């Protein structure tokens, strides 16, 4: 069963290398296109305000242990107070913000553009691979897999006695798809690689941002137990200064 097929050298030259090169180039192209197409949207004042309030509350939570207990508590009341606390949003208003988020045409367009710019090159490349490079063995993967993967990996090959390690070009395409992510993050800097699933999830969670995160911050502030972290700080200062003098 494990006979060694001898594969044509031309396959190496005309299938493997061009496919990888094309995928790398398309990735780079997509990166630059998305950079060019990023429309600058005028941010809504109310949303920016809420965002800043959230950032302040978060900073308060992060630095809570460095301010004296009394000032921490007074700040917390300022945020969480029932009537005029900044983080307290009555239920009526909450619904409004959501509806606004969804019907806002600019945001919807942006999301669609980003999704499209991700999906279209993948679909096109996949169709191209299927059209030109189907029906022959393209590569041999160096590790053995079980028979169940045969239908997935050996798509155009209709012989059932060929070892599962010999795969068609469709699986070479998928292998490239996943493996080049790392390469893109190295070349293009800072994870502009295509993390498909992660980005899809981020995009879908967009509309609910302001209202839920306000109440989340409020709860977070309520939970914080204040531990005064700098009680011995005069002693430490003394120790450090003594070391410097010596």
């Amino acid at each position, binding site marked *: 069963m494990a006979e060694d097929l*001898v*594969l044509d*050298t031309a396959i*190496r030259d005309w299938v*493997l290398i061009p496919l*990888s090169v094309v995928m790398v180039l398309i990735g780079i192209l997509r990166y630059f296109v998305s950079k060019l197409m990023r429309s600058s949207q005028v941010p809504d004042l109310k949303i920016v305000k809420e965002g800043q309030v959230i950032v302040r509350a978060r900073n308060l939570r992060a630095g809570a*242990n460095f301010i004296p207990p009394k000032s921490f508590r007074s700040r917390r009341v300022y945020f969480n107070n029932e009537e005029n606390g900044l983080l307290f949003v009555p239920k009526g208003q909450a619904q409004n913000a959501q509806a606004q988020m969804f019907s806002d045409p600019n945001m919807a367009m942006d999301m669609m553009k980003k999704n499209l710019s991700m999906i279209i090159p993948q679909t096109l490349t996949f169709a191209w691979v299927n059209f030109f490079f189907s029906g022959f063995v393209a*590569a*041999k*993967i*160096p*590790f*053995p897999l079980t028979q169940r993967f045969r239908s997935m990996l050996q798509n155009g090959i209709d012989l059932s006695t060929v070892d599962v390690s010999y795969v068609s070009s469709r699986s070479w395409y998928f*292998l*490239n798809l*996943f*493996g*080049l*992510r*790392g*390469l893109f*993050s*190295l070349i293009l800097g*800072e994870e502009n690689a295509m993390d498909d699933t992660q980005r899809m999830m981020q995009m879908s969670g967009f509309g609910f941002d302001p209202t839920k995160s306000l109440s989340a911050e409020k709860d977070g502030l309520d939970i914080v137990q204040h*531990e005064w*972290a*700098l009680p*011995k*700080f005069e002693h*430490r200062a003394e120790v450090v200064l003594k070391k410097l003098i010596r």
Partner: protein
Amino acid sequence: MAGHSDSSSSEKKSGEAMTDVPTFSAENLQNNMKVIYYSRTFMSITGGVIAGIFGFTGFVGFIFYFLVMTITSIGLIAKAKFSVHSYFDSWNRIILDGLMGGLMSFVLFWTFAYDIVHIF
């Protein structure tokens, strides 16, 4: 591995042992995580090409991958001068992070090099 430690940018101190409560500068911590990610990706690509050229098949190849990852971890720990806690918040970060992500790149370049060299 001298080339490897030179290629990673300097790691910044992110933990200060100034009080009993450990505090971390989030920005520096993130920068350090990025350094780990880049190092691991680069090493998995290189390791993949080496594995393919040598002709490892099957299980041996995966063992080689974990060997390369261990060498990367040791290199990173040595660069952090063995005081991991002042650069990261836990041991797990420097050892386990980015392991699975690098695997895909490793397999791709392993397959590529193996095919080009051995089944040409």
